């Protein structure tokens, strides 16, 4: 029997929500209220949809929550977990509006046992390599001061390579990057990293090698802790930089490499000199070069005069070739030029072939010569000797 309309309970002017409004509001509250989190629980009712998405429940002794893992993330998780497996999942709580259901959208799933195994394997490899001296500071090679060809072992599609390219272009644009593409996580990553590192030794004229990847979760770094990868890295014949972008964890490749960089960008900073530093050093050397020659000028003015044409030629050549780049050097050279001496009233007797006439014997009666003064030359002739 229908209930009579209780007009004193609800009136047409009351604010009545639709179901969609309610679920949308719940969605906003739930999805805005949590950061991504790790949850531990047992998998039950696991199902792979034809779409490739995974659906399952995660439960503990008293509660359970529906979980959904999109195909893209499920692929990375590897083998589907068996019923009852205890797992860590990373995800965000969400509301599935069509059914008004609360669920956890899972992006990562790792069996808890795998974490234990991975940790044990890591400790085993670390102890072994340490015993063999692969982490020994005495093994560490210095990076070259001016590398020009850098082998980069990473994924061509990864953010790490983009960062390395950006920094390299800024620091040392005449450098050459030789990229060896490799998977850096998941199935096959270890074999591919080993192959790529061996390939570095077959490249001629490589100055150093960067191996790395961008930031990832702890389990994504597994390949960089693999024994085979560490050994291949130790066998690289040029200095190596390990750049596994993870803020808290140190991978074993970080310990084996000659240098550890916190990120791929930092690796490029370490690998290549900064052109701005070198430009400054060159400016300084240019100034000292000019100053050094100036010292000679003060020591023997007449000897400088003899060389005046050559020096002037050098200055002209410098100016012509370098243009305004060397304007500062040129100004300094100009200030030291022996031609400045001419401003003080000295003149240079010069033979028609450009030779400077220094001794009585060089003046032949009747022979023409010119007198070089500050603003040009004056024709002259020897009357008598």
């Amino acid at each position, binding site marked *: 029997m229908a209930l009579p309309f209780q007009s004193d309970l609800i009136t047409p002017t009351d604010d009545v929500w639709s179901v969609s409004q309610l679920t949308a509001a719940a969605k906003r509250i739930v999805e805005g209220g949590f950061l991504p989190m790790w949850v531990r629980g047992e998998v039950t009712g696991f199902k792979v949809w034809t779409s490739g998405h995974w659906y399952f429940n995660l439960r503990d002794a008293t509660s359970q929550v529906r979980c959904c893992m999109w195909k893209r993330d499920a692929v990375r998780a590897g083998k589907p977990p068996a019923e009852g497996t205890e797992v860590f999942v990373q995800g965000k709580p969400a509301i599935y509006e069509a059914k008004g259901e609360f669920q956890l959208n899972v992006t990562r799933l790792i069996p808890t046992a795998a974490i234990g195994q991975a940790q044990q394997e890591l400790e085993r490899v670390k102890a072994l390599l340490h015993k063999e001296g692969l982490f020994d500071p005495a093994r560490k090679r210095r990076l070259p001061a*001016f590398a020009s060809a850098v082998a980069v072992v990473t994924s*061509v599609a990864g953010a790490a390579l*983009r960062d390395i390219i950006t920094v390299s*272009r800024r620091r040392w644009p005449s450098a050459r990057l*030789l990229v060896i593409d490799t998977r850096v996580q998941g199935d096959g990553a270890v074999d591919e990293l080993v192959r790529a590192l061996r390939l570095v030794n077959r*490249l001629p004229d490589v100055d150093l090698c960067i191996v790395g990847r961008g930031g990832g979760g702890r389990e994504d770094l597994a390949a960089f802790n693999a024994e085979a990868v560490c050994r291949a890295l130790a066998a690289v014949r040029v200095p190596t930089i390990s750049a596994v972008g993870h803020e808290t964890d140190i991978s074993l490749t970080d310990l084996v490499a000659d240098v550890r960089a916190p990120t791929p960008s930092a690796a490029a900073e370490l690998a290549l000199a900064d052109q701005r530093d070198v430009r400054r050093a060159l400016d300084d*050397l240019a100034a000292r*070069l000019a100053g050094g020659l100036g*010292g000679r000028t003060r020591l023997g003015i007449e000897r400088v005069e003899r060389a005046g044409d050559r020096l002037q030629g050098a200055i002209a050549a410098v100016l012509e070739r370098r243009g305004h780049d060397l304007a500062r050097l040129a100004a300094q050279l100009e200030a030291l030029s022996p031609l400045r001496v001419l401003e003080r009233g000295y003149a240079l007797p010069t033979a028609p072939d450009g030779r400077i006439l220094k001794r009585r014997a060089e003046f032949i009666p009747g022979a023409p010569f010119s007198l070089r003064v500050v603003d040009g030359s004056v024709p002259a002739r020897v009357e008598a000797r």
Partner: protein
Amino acid sequence: MTTIADDLTRLEEIVRRLESDDIELDAALALFEEGVARLRSARERLAAADLKVQTVLEGAGGDLHLEHLDT
């Protein structure tokens, strides 16, 4: 093949010698000219073209070749 490191090392040496007092003028001028040439070569190296990025590919027979990578 000389490198920019060679240029910088030699420039340091040239400048040190020019700054010492016991050097003949002819030698000083020769050093100066070499210094100017080294400066020029070092600056030209810095002014070189855009960063070169290549991928290393291994053929079926194990031969290596380089391919330009668009960045």
